[in-house]
C-alpha cells in the first residue's frame, strides 16, 4: 500500500512523547509564534478561549514535530473557531462530529498529531455519541473540551453542563435537566486518559496538555472556561486565590492527596466506595489515599470525579486516570501488517478472479 506522503518517523535521539512515536521529529525547534495564524481572532473580549489558545500555541513546540504534522479538528461553537488561529492543518467541521472525523484521520494517518477542540454543547449534547465511542476505542486523538456551561455562539441557552434551574433565554423559568459531569462521563466510557484543568491557570493547563500528548490513545481534557458574555464567573469560586486553595484538589500521581488550608485535608474511602474529605490531623494515616492515576479499574477515578458539587466545595483538577492500552490506529495497522505477513500483499488479479471461474473460448 502506498503511504499517502511517504513520510516516516525519522530516527531521533530525544525521548518522544508517547502519542508521537510514529510522528516525524521536527528538525528545528519551533516557537509559539510559528503556530499563530494570521487570522484575526474573533472571540469576545475577556473570553477564556484567548488564554487557552495562547497556552496551546505556546505548548505545541514542545511536541517537537513539524508544524505540518499537527492537525486541529473542531466542531461548531465558540471554541470550535480555534483551528483558524493555529497555523497548522485545521478542519472546522460540523456540530458534534469532530471526534468522528478525527477518528478517520488519526486511524489512517498515524504520522499526525491530531487535536480535537470542542465545547460542552458540541461534545456532550449533539456529539455525545461520537465522544463516548472515540474514547472507548482509544483512538490516538487529544480532545480538549472547553466547558463554559452555556451555549455561547447561539447567544446564551443553557447547556448540558449548566446547573439545574439555570435561567436563560430558552429557560426563563429555569432549566429542568440535570447536568452532566464530563469527567464522570468520560470515565464511564472507559477513557484511558481523563483530566481537568482551568483556563486561567496556564501552568496547570500546560502540564495537562503535556501529559495528554504523552499518552498514546484517546485523551480527554475538560477545561473550565469562562464566558464573560453569557455565563460570567461560572467558575469564580475556583479563581479567588484564597478560595481556590480550599476548593481545588490538585491531583499528582503518586502523591498523597492534600488540599485545604495548610494542606490540612485529605481523602479516604467511605463505606460505599465513595471518597470523603477528612482532616488529616485526626485521621488514621493508613486510610488516607495517595493519588494513583494508573489504576486499571476506573472506579477510583470515578469516585474522585464524584467529589464535585454544584457549590464547588471540592473540585479535583489534574489527571484523574491514565492507563496504557493499545490505541485503535495501532491495532488497525497491526491487523493489516499481520494479514500481509500471513498471506503477502494483495494480488488484485487473484482477488477479482476468485475461486470459481470458467473459461469461454
Amino acid at each position, binding site marked *: 500500500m502506498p503511504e499517502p506522503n511517504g513520510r516516516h518517523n525519522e530516527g531521533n535521539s530525544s525521548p518522544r512523547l508517547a502519542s508521537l512515536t510514529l510522528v516525524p521529529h521536527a528538525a528545528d525547534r519551533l516557537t509559539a509564534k510559528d503556530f499563530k495564524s494570521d487570522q484575526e481572532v474573533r472571540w469576545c473580549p475577556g473570553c477564556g478561549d484567548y488564554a487557552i489558545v495562547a497556552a496551546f500555541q505556546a505548548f505545541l513546540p514542545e511536541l517537537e514535530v513539524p508544524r505540518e504534522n499537527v492537525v486541529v479538528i473542531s466542531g461548531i461553537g465558540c471554541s470550535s473557531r480555534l483551528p483558524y488561529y493555529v497555523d497548522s492543518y485545521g478542519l472546522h467541521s460540523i456540530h458534534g462530529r469532530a471526534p468522528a472525523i478525527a477518528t*478517520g484521520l488519526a486511524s489512517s494517518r498515524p504520522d499526525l498529531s491530531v487535536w480535537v477542540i470542542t465545547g460542552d454543547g458540541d461534545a456532550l449534547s449533539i456529539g455525545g455519541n461520537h465522544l463516548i465511542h472515540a474514547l472507548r476505542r482509544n483512538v490516538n486523538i487529544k480532545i480538549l473540551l472547553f466547558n463554559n456551561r452555556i451555549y455561547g455562539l447561539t447567544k446564551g441557552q443553557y447547556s448540558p453542563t449548566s446547573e439545574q434551574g439555570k435561567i436563560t433565554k430558552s429557560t426563563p423559568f429555569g432549566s429542568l435537566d440535570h447536568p452532566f459531569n464530563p469527567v464522570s462521563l468520560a470515565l464511564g466510557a472507559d477513557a484511558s486518559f481523563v483530566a481537568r484543568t482551568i483556563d486561567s491557570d496556564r501552568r496547570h493547563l500546560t502540564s495537562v496538555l503535556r501529559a495528554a500528548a504523552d499518552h498514546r490513545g484517546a485523551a480527554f481534557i475538560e477545561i473550565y472556561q469562562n464566558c464573560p458574555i453569557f455565563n460570567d464567573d461560572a467558575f469564580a469560586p475556583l479563581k479567588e486565590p484564597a478560595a481556590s486553595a480550599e476548593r481545588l484538589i490538585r491531583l499528582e500521581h503518586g502523591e498523597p492527596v492534600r488540599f485545604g488550608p495548610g494542606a490540612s485535608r485529605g481523602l479516604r474511602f467511605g463505606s460505599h466506595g465513595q471518597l470523603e474529605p477528612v482532616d488529616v490531623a485526626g485521621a488514621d494515616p493508613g486510610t488516607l489515599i495517595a493519588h494513583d492515576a494508573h489504576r486499571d479499574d476506573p472506579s477510583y477515578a470515578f469516585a474522585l470525579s464524584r467529589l464535585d458539587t454544584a457549590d464547588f466545595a471540592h473540585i479535583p483538577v489534574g489527571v484523574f486516570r491514565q492507563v496504557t492500552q493499545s490505541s485503535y490506529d495501532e491495532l488497525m495497522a497491526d491487523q493489516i501488517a499481520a494479514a500481509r505477513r500471513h498471506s503477502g500483499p494483495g494480488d488484485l488479479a487473484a482477488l*477479482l478472479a476468485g475461486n470459481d471461474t470458467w473459461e469461454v473460448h
Partner: protein
Amino acid sequence: MTKQVQTLDHVIIRFAGDSGDGMQLAGDRFTQETAAFGNDLSTLPNFPAEIRAPAGTLPGVSSFQLHFADHDILTPGDAPDVLIAMNPAALRANISDLPRGGDLIVNTDEFTKRNLTKVGYAANPLEDGSLEQYHVHAVPITSMTVKALESFDITRKDAERAKNMFALGMLSWLYDRPAEGTLGFLKAKFSGRPEIMQANVAAFQAGWNFGETTEAFSVRYEVKPATLAPGSYRNISGNTALAYGLVTASQLSGLPLFLGSYPITPASDILHELARHKRFGVRTFQAEDEIAAVGAALGAAFGGSLAVTSTSGPGMLLKAETIGLAVSVELPLIVCDIQRAGPSTGMPTKTEQADLLQAMFGRNGESPVPIVAAASPADCFSAVIEAARIAVKYRTPVILLSDGYLANGSEPWRIPEIASLPDLASEFAFATPGADAGAFQPFLRDPATLARPWAIPGTPGLEHRIGGIEKADVTGEISYDPDNHDRMVRLRQAKIDGIAADIAPLRVDDPDGSARVLVIGWGSTYGSIGAAVRRVRNGGHPVAHAHLRYLNPFPPNLGEVLRRYDKVLLPEINLGQLALLLRGRFLVDVISYNRVRGLPFRAAELAGVIEDVIGHA
C-alpha cells in the same frame, strides 16, 4: 429406467421455503453450479427482513429465483417455470406466480393439518384438485432425507436440516448440473464437523439418486452453455462487485482505501467483504452510527485516503450534513447508497429506486453532488471505479446508487484484465510543497476542472484551515461577503456541471434508426427494460432504448436524444423521480411508468407498456 432428455433454451427456477429451510443457500449453490456449467444467468433472492420470522408462516417465506439460459439474458425472469415449495406457506405465497402447466415440486411431509391451517388452507391443496393445472411432483423430501441419513450419528433435527441439500441434489440431477462445486463447498463449510458434512453430502446424493430413479420425474432437462464473449468468467453479486471495485480503485489510484460504515440492510455486505481484504491495506471502520461512518471517511479523505462510506436510504439522511461539508470543503468522498424500499424503515430487504431526489437535493443550500448509477450486479464494479475517478479528479463527494436487487442479485462477470482498467493515478495529484514562499491558497482552482488543491496534512508549507463556513474564493479564508458567496455557489455548481464534458455521451440502442419511441431508464431497471425491448422488437415493433449511468450531471447529449423521439417512456421503481428532473431540465413530456412493489419490473409487463405507447405514437 432411462429418462427422456429434453433440451431447453432457458429455465426459471424458484426455490421457496421457510426462512430456516436454507433456500438462499440452495439457490446460491445451484447458481454456482450453473455458472460453472457456463450458462448465462441472473438471480433474484427475496427474503424477509426478520432473521427468523415465525416458522411456517407467510411472512417467514424466503425464496430464490434463478434464470439460466443458453443465450445472454438480462433478468431473473418474470415467472418461474419450476417452483419448489418446501412447505404450505411457500406454496401459498408463490403459487400465483407459477404459470399454468408449470412444474411444481412439493415437499409433502410439511403438508400437515397444522401447517395448512397456519396459512389458511382449509383443505390440503395436494388433495383437493386445486393444483390440477400444474405438473405436480409430490416428494416427501423431509422424510426421505431423514431416512437417507439414518446411519449417521446426528440428531433428527440436523438430519431434517439437510433437506435443502436433498432438494438441491434432486434439482441438480433434473437439470444436469455439475455437482463437484457443491460437494467441495460442503466439505469446506463443515470441515470442523465431519458428521454434518458427510450427512449433507449424503443428502445431496440421495436427492440426485432419487431424481434418477423415481417416476416422479419422467423427463430430464438440459440447457446448453451460453455463447458469451470469450474470456474468464465468474459469478458475482452487486455488493461483491462494488467492494472489488473499491479495492481496485484504491490500487489503480495508489490511494489507501478507508471505508467508514454502519451496518444496514442491504449494504452491510460491502463492509463484510472489504473487512476481509486487509492485505490490500484496506481500513474498515464500523462506526457508532451513520454520521460517524461518513465523518470518519471524510477525515480519512482529508488525510489522503480513497474514502468511502456505504449505506442505504435511512443512512443517507443521517449522512446528509457531512456530505454537505464535503461539498463545502471540496474533498473526494464516495458515498454508496444501496437503495431499499422506503419511506422510513420501509421494506429493508426489498428493492426501490426512490432515493434519486434525495441524492440530488437532500442537503441544505446549493449543494451539487455527482451521481453515478449501476445498471446490473456486475456493473457495480465499473460504476464505483467511475465514481472514484470523478471524486478524486474533481475533489467532490460522489453518490453511487445501487439497490437491493443489484446488491443481492448475481450474474456472470467477465473478469477484466487489470491493464484494461482506467489509470486513476493520472487523474489527480496531491498538492506538493510550495517552492515559493507565498501563502498557500487552498481554493485556487485548476482552470480546467475547477478542482481545488488536495493538500494533505504532513505536506510542509501547505498548512491551511478549511471548514463548513463560506470561504473566500482563492484564499479560502472565512468570508461573509455577499458577492463572494454568489461566486462560490456558482463555482461549486460549475465544477459539477463541467464533469459532463468528461463522461461518455448517452448511447442509444436503436438498431435500424426507425424507432419513434424511446424507452429511457437508469440504474437497476436496465435488465428489465432491455428484456422488454427485445420482446417488443421480436414482435416487429421498432423501439429505442437508452440507459443513464450519470444522473448528475447528465451526459451532454441527453437533451438532443430526448428530443429526437416522438415519445419518451421512462419506467422507474419510484413515482417518477427522474421524470421530474428530465421534464424540469429539458421540457420534454416524458411518459412515466411506475410500480413500487419492492421487486424489479417484469419484462412482459414493460413490453406491454412499451407496445401501448408505440400504439399511440
